């Protein structure tokens, strides 16, 4: 996955809006913004933050500056240690020409010292949307790690992975019924981009508009497009 290739694949899949949400880092977001500059494809600055309970929380931000303001905190709270490329792969920092600018040596696969509740609070402080990642999955999800949705966590939405339908997820986890549920590809490689999509009806492709849609405000709304059973993963 590199900025230009991501943009190319997203356009091929006729996506209008994609969020770049690397684990515990936003250092590759600017390059994707630049790579998409000439296109209609809109990029959202995001980050997937790992809590001390190993819950993954997505932050979607209005602008690059907002996610970068959170990055310092995430880095400061990230578990000590350096990445081991032989085991976890290279953590490349790329530019908009898909050239390697450097390597991120932090242990991005690790967890921060922040609890899930603290992460949601900090995302909100940076004016972002906080979404509990892939809550239907058996690892790294709010429900797999804690077993329930705590009262003190004020989520904007939960995310269903491409591996479940909305019906399956709400049947298995009825507690999510009271929270807006979105889906996304959670693409960790190019081929996964576009495998699940949330269709938003917005005045313009922006995070404040998405926030309205999640709350069904002012005519904004959304619907999930998940892979059909024959397309989905096992």
């Amino acid at each position, binding site marked *: 996955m590199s900025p230009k290739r991501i943009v190319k694949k997203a356009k091929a899949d006729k996506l209008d809006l994609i969020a770049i949400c690397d684990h515990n880092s936003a250092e590759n977001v600017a390059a994707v913004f630049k790579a998409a500059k000439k296109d209609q494809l809109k990029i959202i600055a995001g980050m997937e933050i790992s809590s001390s309970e*190993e819950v993954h929380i997505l932050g979607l931000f209005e602008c690059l500056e907002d996610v970068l303001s959170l990055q310092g905190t995430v880095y400061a709270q990230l*578990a000590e240690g350096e990445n081991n490329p032989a085991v976890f792969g290279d953590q490349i920092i790329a530019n908009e020409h898909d050239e390697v600018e450097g390597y991120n040596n932090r*242990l991005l*696969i*690790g*967890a921060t010292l922040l609890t899930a509740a603290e992460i949601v609070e900090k995302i909100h402080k940076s004016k972002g949307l906080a979404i509990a990642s892939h809550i239907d999955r058996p*690892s790294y999800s709010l429900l797999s790690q804690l077993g329930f949705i705590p009262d003190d966590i004020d989520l904007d939405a939960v995310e269903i992975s491409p591996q479940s339908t909305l019906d399956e997820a709400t049947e298995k986890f009825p507690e999510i019924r009271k929270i807006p549920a979105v889906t996304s590809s959670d693409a960790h490689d190019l081929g996964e981009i576009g495998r699940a999509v949330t269709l938003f009806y917005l005045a313009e492709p922006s995070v404040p508009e998405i926030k309205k849609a999640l709350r069904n405000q002012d005519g904004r709304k959304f619907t999930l497009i998940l892979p059909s059973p024959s397309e989905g993963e096992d």
Partner: protein
Amino acid sequence: MDNNVLTVGSIVKTLALEVQSGQELMFTEIKGGYSSDLLSDVMANGKKGDIWVTCQIHPNIIAVGVLKEMAGIIITGGRKPDAGMVEKARTEKLIVMCSSLPSFEVAGKLWAMGVEGPR
């Protein structure tokens, strides 16, 4: 303290473990044990030569097991790793075993055999 060094092979028999990978590595010595389902916790506190007891079956456990040079991983509670994980474990020469028993019992039995915790 019992000075007899335990090998993975000996615990496989006693605990009736199902070996998924590393069948050729049963002579591997066990230096200690660690029980945790949080990968970040294992990365911080696991030690080389530990036998790792967990019900976590996320593919990342293979990378963590390799990173910490563990004697092996016992996946508990009847859970099973997927084929991709087993293949990766074989390539990395990491022993992965399965037990139908819950983590508490597996850890207890290992302790009773002389496998001790953090050192």
